């Protein structure tokens, strides 16, 4: 079965080809079904590959399927091959699994859209590119998929391109990613220059022969690429804007799969990180944790439901990078998987809500939707508890593991991580309370309703996954470390080892549980209680007792809100400004250079003559008299 691993990629490609040729003729909903079936087929293949890999000895769970010679540029020949190992199969499994569910959801969500079939053309192309990225056996092939997902993301963000904002957002994503891409490309060429190959297995086999400087440079450049794709500081700015795309796209690309590509890449090249100077992983960890805190802060001040989720995604990606930086590769992948489940769930849930409210995304006009949309509400609440870190849901286990490793690396990392966790619990609770609780603030002409079965079924499936996925990697005993054991062949013994005792781990877990509780309690106090002024009047003492409440209110309404708004403003002005600034400086440089292009032929001749003199001077320097 392993030789047939190419089928995993072939299914979405076939779906893409069929839809490209016949999409318009198939029409709605058949085009959607074709795309969904292609994903399902791919998922089944992934399962089969997974099963046959399981049947092998752990040491032999690494297999390259060579497809064809791709770029035979002299010595730089690049074969297109697939690397089938536990890491890539894990990724393939959840990409195809979550992908199939989101495809299914999109059949319902995109109902009635004029470009129904085109949407699925892009979606299948995206899935194909993502699988090439994940399964490619060389940096070059991964880069190909990397660019492919970038283009699809660009196309899908600006899918409703009649809207100027969407077009701009698509552009922003494209440009920011190009910045990261050249980091990737440089790393690739550097690796080739140093080792003569870009195939992963060659690179890893010879990693020890690399000088630590070279390895560091490659790792940092790759991290630049990863920061672009996985929305880390300071290249994250495209992701919030990317929410302009249809919600299934946000769920699939900008939450579950594509944005995790950067994390995947860093985990993939763990043998290089192991050789690099110690400061390289530290940079990764600190960028990760800073991103996590920053984005969580920004999420507090958002009113657009998708923006909250977008910042939350950035924040969670920051956790994953933190894990990579502390050598907790298993934890990174673990959190990636659980996050894929609950974040896809949250996005799809928000899609249902937006759908129900006729496209309104402003949470200030939500409220009390629990009754109108029970399935969405229940599944959404599962997602909320999962991301907030409430045991025994999936998010708790994966986040806890990351925090434990962070403590091990440096308590400072852990402190920032735990603060982020409190904020996470707070803003997610705020989201849930403003959406599903309180009184209805939407207009009377809107009649929210539960979406069709097509859309709720994936919600239920994802919610179930979000509940149980923690079981993949339980911390209690070594035997329950399923994911860790499974991924071992891909990690080349580079996984960090926890030096904490069981007691310390329990203590940390308790602290993070307390953090989640504080966050949720704070939100309850602010967004549930203060919506009920009557009850306050009834319990003045309780109101006094709720000193916390007032502090929170004052803090959130006063300095806190200002701080969060400050973060948001920083985001809007400084960071966006920096990106715009690059554009502006190009523009300024261009304006300056344009002055040289005067239109006068004699000026051009002068330029030519000056160039000639410069060249002559250079050669004169080289001359031996």
């Amino acid at each position, binding site marked *: 079965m392993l030789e047939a691993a190419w089928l995993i990629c072939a299914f979405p490609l076939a779906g893409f080809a069929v839809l490209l040729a016949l999409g318009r003729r198939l029409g709605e909903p058949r085009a959607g079904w074709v795309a969904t079936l292609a994903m399902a087929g791919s998922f089944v293949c992934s399962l089969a590959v997974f099963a046959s890999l399981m049947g092998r000895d752990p040491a032999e769970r690494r297999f390259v399927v060579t497809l064809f010679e791709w770029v035979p540029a002299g010595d730089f020949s690049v074969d297109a091959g697939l690397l089938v190992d536990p890491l890539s199969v894990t990724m393939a499994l959840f990409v195809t699994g979550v992908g199939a569910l989101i495809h299914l959801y999109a059949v319902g969500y995109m109902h009635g859209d004029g470009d129904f079939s085109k949407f699925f053309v892009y979606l299948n192309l995206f899935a194909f590119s993502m699988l090439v990225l994940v399964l490619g056996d060389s940096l070059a092939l991964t880069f190909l998929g990397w660019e492919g997902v970038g283009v699809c993301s660009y196309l899908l963000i600006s899918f409703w391109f009649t809207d100027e904002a969407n077009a701009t957002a698509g552009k922003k994503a494209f440009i920011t990613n190009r910045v990261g891409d050249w980091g990737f490309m440089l790393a690739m*060429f550097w690796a080739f220059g140093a080792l003569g190959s870009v195939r992963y297995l060659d690179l890893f086999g010879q990693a020890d022969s690399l000088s630590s400087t070279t390895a560091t440079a490659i790792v940092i450049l790759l991290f630049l690429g990863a920061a672009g794709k996985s929305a880390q500081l300071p290249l994250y700015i495209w992701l919030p804007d990317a929410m302009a795309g249809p919600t299934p796209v946000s769920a699939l690309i900008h939450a579950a799969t594509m944005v995790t590509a950067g994390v995947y890449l860093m985990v993939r090249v763990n043998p290089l990180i192991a050789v690099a100077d110690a400061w390289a992983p530290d940079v990764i960890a600190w960028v990760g944790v800073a991103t996590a805190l920053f984005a969580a802060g920004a999420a507090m001040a958002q009113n657009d439901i998708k923006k909250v989720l977008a910042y939350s995604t950035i924040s969670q990606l920051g956790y994953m990078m933190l894990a990579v930086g502390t050598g907790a590769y298993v934890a990174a992948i673990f959190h990636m998987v659980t996050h894929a489940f609950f974040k896809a769930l949250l996005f799809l849930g928000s899609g249902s809500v937006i759908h129900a409210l006729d496209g309104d995304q402003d949470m200030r006009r939500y409220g009390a939707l629990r009754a109108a949309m029970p399935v969405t509400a229940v599944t959404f609440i599962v997602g909320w508890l999962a991301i907030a870190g409430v045991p025994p849901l999936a998010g708790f286990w994966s986040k806890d593991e990351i925090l434990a490793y962070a403590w091990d690396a440096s308590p400072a990392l852990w402190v920032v991580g735990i603060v982020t966790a409190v904020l996470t619990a707070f803003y997610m609770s705020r989201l849930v309370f403003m959406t599903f609780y309180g009184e209805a603030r939407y207009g009377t002409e809107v009649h929210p309703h539960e979406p069709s079965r097509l859309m709720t079924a994936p919600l239920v499936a994802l919610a179930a996954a979000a509940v149980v996925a923690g079981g993949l990697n339980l911390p209690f005993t070594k035997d329950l470390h399923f994911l860790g054991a499974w991924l071992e062949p891909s990690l080349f013994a580079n996984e960090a080892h926890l030096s904490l005792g069981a007691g310390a781990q329990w203590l940390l877990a308790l602290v993070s549980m307390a953090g989640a509780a504080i966050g949720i309690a704070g939100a309850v106090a602010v967004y549930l209680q203060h919506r009920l002024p009557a009850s306050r009047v009834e319990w003045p003492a309780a109101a006094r007792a709720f000193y916390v409440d007032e502090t929170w209110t004052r803090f959130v309404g006063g300095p806190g809100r200002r701080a969060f708004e400050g973060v948001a403003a920083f985001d809007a002005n400084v960071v966006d400004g920096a990106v715009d600034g690059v554009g502006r400086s190009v523009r300024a440089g261009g304006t300056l250079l344009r002055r040289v292009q005067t239109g006068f032929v004699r000026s051009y001749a002068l330029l030519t003559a000056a160039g000639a003199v410069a060249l002559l001077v250079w050669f004169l320097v080289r001359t031996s008299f």
Partner: protein
Amino acid sequence: MMGALLAQLPVQTPDVDWTGLLPVLLPSAGALVLLMVRSLVPSRVMPAVLDAVWTFAVAVASLVSVVVLWQRDAEVQAFGSQLVMDGMALFVTAVVLGSVALVAPTLPRYCKRVGVASAELCVLILLAAAGAVVMAGAADLIVLFLGLETMSIAAYVMAALNLRRLESLEAGLKYFVLGAFSTAFLLFGIALVYGATGTTSLDEIGRHLDTFILLRDGMLLAGSAMLLVGLGFKVAAAPFHAWAPDTYVGAPTPVTALMASAVKAAGFAALIRVFVEALGTRADDWRPAVFALACATLAVGSVLAAVQSDAKRILAYSSVSHAGFILVGVQAASDSGVAAVLFYLAVYAVIAVGSFTVVAVLSGQRDDRTGLDTLAGLSSRRPALALGLTILLLAQAGVPFTSGFVAKFSVIAAAVEARSYWLAVVAMVSAVVAAFAYLRVVVAMYFRDSGDEAETAAEAPKPAIGLGAGAVIVAAVLFTVALGVVPGVLESLTSTAAGL
């Protein structure tokens, strides 16, 4: 009989391999036949379409001769030791003739619309092609120079051919004045290299430098500098690029397409012949200079492309930035660098002809409607055309699955192989900047609604594409995408041509 006569002559004429000469002979003879027929047969008997058909046929016939020569698998001494059709010469010849064959079908409709004399244009195109082929196969600096002049003078005239448009005349004049200026530099360079080595034959120059160590190499190096000025001008390398944007915009659009494809290819062939091959032993001296030229070209091309508001001018500056990329390959001064350059030339020639053909289709009665606003809303008026141009632009930006990606990839790989890491960095940064420029065109086509002014344009009949131009655009797009997916076909050819 003929042989006996020749033997009596006091001069020993060189051996001529007539098959080997066909790539030069066919275009020039084709031009002369066309010129003669046109001046004898009245135009109402012979419709104007036939000029382009003839040009196309001649180009294809010459391409066939190239294929035949390629099969020979050995260097062909076409005319004594003056014209050598080796692998590289044949490949560049194919690029030149291929560009001519691609441009020819677009000519009839264009010439009729804009009012350019098609017969003379076709004659000049064929003669310019002959000159370009001579440049590619030149084994002597004098021959190289004459080929370059034949091509350039034809190009000066073609640039000015839209006589009713002042910009076209301006383009011709600027190109001519600066061309003549740089020719003087090139000639001085030839003189100095001749003085330093005692010969103008490229082979002998190479051999001379291999066997002797020059005690005083000032003359040789000054000569190389001057040669670099002259050839750098032809390929539009900064700071010798200033003519390119103005000339590209002013010239009739099909001519611009040829300048970006055939003329550029021939210029780079000459650059490789002179620097990589003849002056290969002095690579350490000239590589830093080419390095600087490449950096400047990349920067100027991409930055200025990003701030233009005219589609043709964006493409013109992007052509400058592509020249920078190709210089990156030249700078590597290695066989794999040459292979990468050849690959890039072929890929870019097709992309350039395709993109400029789209511009030509839209350029209107006077060939001057090329601003970004004319592209506004093209996606709704002509979705297929918009898609085609988008693909070609993405290829120029170097997006994977297009030939442009593989081309950029291979030149940068060659640079890295030659340890020119910084050049690779500059190249990639400039690719990011240039992406802005291409995106602006795409955005204009897809996302910008045609304003009130363009509203009338939308009501007006859609731009007529015509069979010839349509076929050319489709062919260019297919080539671009196909090579992006399976570049191996062309890579093996370029590797053979570069002697890898």
